[in-house]
């Protein structure tokens, strides 16, 4: 008698071959805290040397494991300590050089994206943080692989509205410096960011992390979609059970890969992030899952409840499957990277307002949302503030990756191709938020943050 039943073996093969189950990313987190130096040249050299030496075998090891175990691993990435901490005290010019150095090192290592050109300013902004934020537009425009994230709010600190206002301007500047504002796809504004997120563009290596760590992000919307479809017209309790079981199996795969990579590289294993991360590929869509749950089109009434069920069941199923669950863990709802979301926007079913409501129950926030190129910075800042408010009040991570596509209006789309997909430009409110944003200061932490 075989140890495994034929239907179990078929199920696994079906998941990888037909349903696009893959490990979305194996991300090596590297601390650069020991690279700080008052001399710009030495700083750059230390960063370069540490990256090249630490991650030398990352790509090859992950590829070996992918090939040996027959599991597709889509991306090999790196996250580093927020650069505002590493390069504190340096001017904008040096910070841009740091971005270039990181970009070149990532290129040499065969890494497509490196996250961590960022700052943590939820309570206040140091001069170093300010320099980094000011450097973001030029730094991202001058590089291909660098991703940036700025945490502007937390449940404990409240919302740093000065930083929010500045980020509105930074996003606009970056949009104008890159073709079709594509640079904005590499910039995330966070509330309650997590330190071990393996997913780009929000990945960075937190200051409380060990020197080097391996974090794994799993995916598999296609697997969950097929499970939901196969479950048929069952009631919600059963549906949640079906999703949980599927999430468990998918996460086990991530756990195994993380352990193997970590053991082979001799680097501690951090966490598995059990997120449903859609891609523009057919069937690899979170929107399609929500529609399979029963809403005619994503964005119609009932979508938020369906998403809550999905996000929660994914977490519950994954929690037992891994010894260390972390990152963002849940369902991502990017617009341009999900064929079902794009279709819903184009059909007029999904608005920015509904998307904002959905972010209160999804794993992150407004992601890969295109808005008209002439959107004022204060409106973008106000969108960030709303999203921060949802995160801060609900003690969850929220984020905004918004793209004001230069020269484009509602009804048009920005074509990015590849994983970034196609971003239909979504309408925004025609009323102004500028007086609100101009107040400045910090919105105090909610009572929920004062829980000691």
């Amino acid at each position: 008698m075989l140890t495994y039943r034929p239907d179990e073996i078929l199920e696994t093969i079906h998941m990888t071959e037909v349903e696009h189950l893959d490990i979305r990313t194996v991300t090596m987190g590297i601390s650069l805290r020991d690279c700080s130096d008052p001399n710009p040249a030495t700083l750059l050299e230390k960063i370069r040397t540490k990256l090249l030496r630490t991650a030398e075998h990352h790509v090859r090891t992950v590829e070996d494991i992918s090939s040996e175990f027959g599991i597709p691993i889509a991306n090999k990435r790196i996250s580093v300590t927020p650069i505002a901490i590493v390069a504190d005290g340096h001017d904008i010019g040096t910070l841009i050089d740091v971005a270039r150095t990181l970009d070149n090192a990532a290129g040499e290592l065969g890494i497509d994206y490196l996250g961590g050109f960022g700052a943590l300013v939820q309570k206040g902004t140091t001069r170093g943080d300010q320099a980094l934020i000011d450097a973001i537009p030029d730094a991202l425009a001058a590089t291909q692989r660098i991703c940036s994230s700025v945490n502007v709010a937390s449940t404990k600190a409240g919302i740093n509205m000065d930083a929010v206002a500045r980020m509105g301007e930074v996003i606009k500047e970056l949009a104008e410096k890159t073709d079709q504002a594509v640079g904005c796809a590499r910039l995330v504004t966070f509330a309650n960011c997590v330190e071990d997120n393996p997913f780009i563009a929000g990945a960075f290596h937190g200051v409380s992390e060990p020197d080097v760590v391996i974090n794994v992000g799993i995916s598999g919307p296609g697997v969950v979609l097929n499970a939901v479809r196969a479950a048929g017209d069952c009631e919600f309790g059963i549906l949640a059970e079906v999703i949980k079981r599927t999430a468990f199996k998918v996460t086990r795969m991530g756990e195994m890969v993380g352990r193997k990579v970590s053991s082979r590289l001799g680097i501690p294993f951090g966490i598995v992030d059990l997120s449903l991360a859609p891609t523009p590929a057919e069937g690899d869509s979170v929107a399609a899952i929500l529609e399979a749950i029963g809403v005619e089109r994503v964005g119609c009434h009932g979508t938020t409840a369906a998403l809550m069920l999905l996000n929660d069941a994914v977490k519950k199923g994954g929690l037992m499957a891994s010894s260390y669950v972390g990152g963002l863990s849940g369902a991502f709802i990017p617009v341009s990277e999900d064929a079902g979301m794009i279709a819903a926007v184009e059909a007029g079913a999904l608005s920015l307002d509904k998307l904002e409501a959905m972010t209160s129950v999804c794993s992150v926030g407004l992601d890969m949302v295109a808005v008209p190129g002439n959107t004022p910075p204060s409106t973008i800042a106000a969108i960030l503030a709303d999203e921060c408010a949802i995160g801060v009040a609900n003690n969850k991570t929220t984020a905004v990756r918004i793209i004001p596509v230069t020269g484009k209006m509602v009804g048009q789309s920005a074509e990015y191709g590849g994983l970034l997909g196609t971003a239909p430009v979504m309408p925004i409110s025609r009323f102004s938020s500028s007086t609100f944003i101009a107040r400045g200061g910090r919105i105090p932490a909610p009572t929920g943050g004062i829980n000691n």
Partner: protein
Amino acid sequence: MALTDFEIKQLTRMVADRMGKSVSDADLSTVVAQVTESLQAKPNNPEITGATCEVSPPRQSSQPSHMATVHDVQTPPTATPTHAVNSEQLGLYQQIEQTDASRVIVAAFGQNRPGIVAAVTRALSETACNIEDMSQTIMQDVFTLIMLVDISGANTDFPTVRDRLTAIESELGMKVFVMHEDIFRYMHRI
């Protein structure tokens, strides 16, 4: 405190399990010596089965040589997990961290016709792989052959074995999948 022969044997077995089949005798004895020493240094040593011991396998020698440089990073070698583990944890970690699973699942699907088993077993025999278990069945009109194969004695590496097996696909008009057993163990067994 001195350990009895029985305790040392027990310990050796635990360490051998923990380090996997591919470990060399020299590495094994180094680690056992290390652990024995650390246990003997403790004044009140409980029984081995409940003992807390530091296991730090000599990674540089038990891993591909190109990995050695990872430790040269300007970081302390804390990258090696040297945390204390007790025997129960040892069993669990051994189960989940074993790096060189030597068994693979071979699954072939297609229209039933003569020669399928022969072709698969020929490929396995040519690469010196050992079939440990085998089952064939008709599922939804599709002939399904599933084998549990030990590749530890294979005369070539895993990718070559896999390529040799998948080469049968065109010969027989079937789909052949070869995946490490670990994947199925992780996914379907708690």
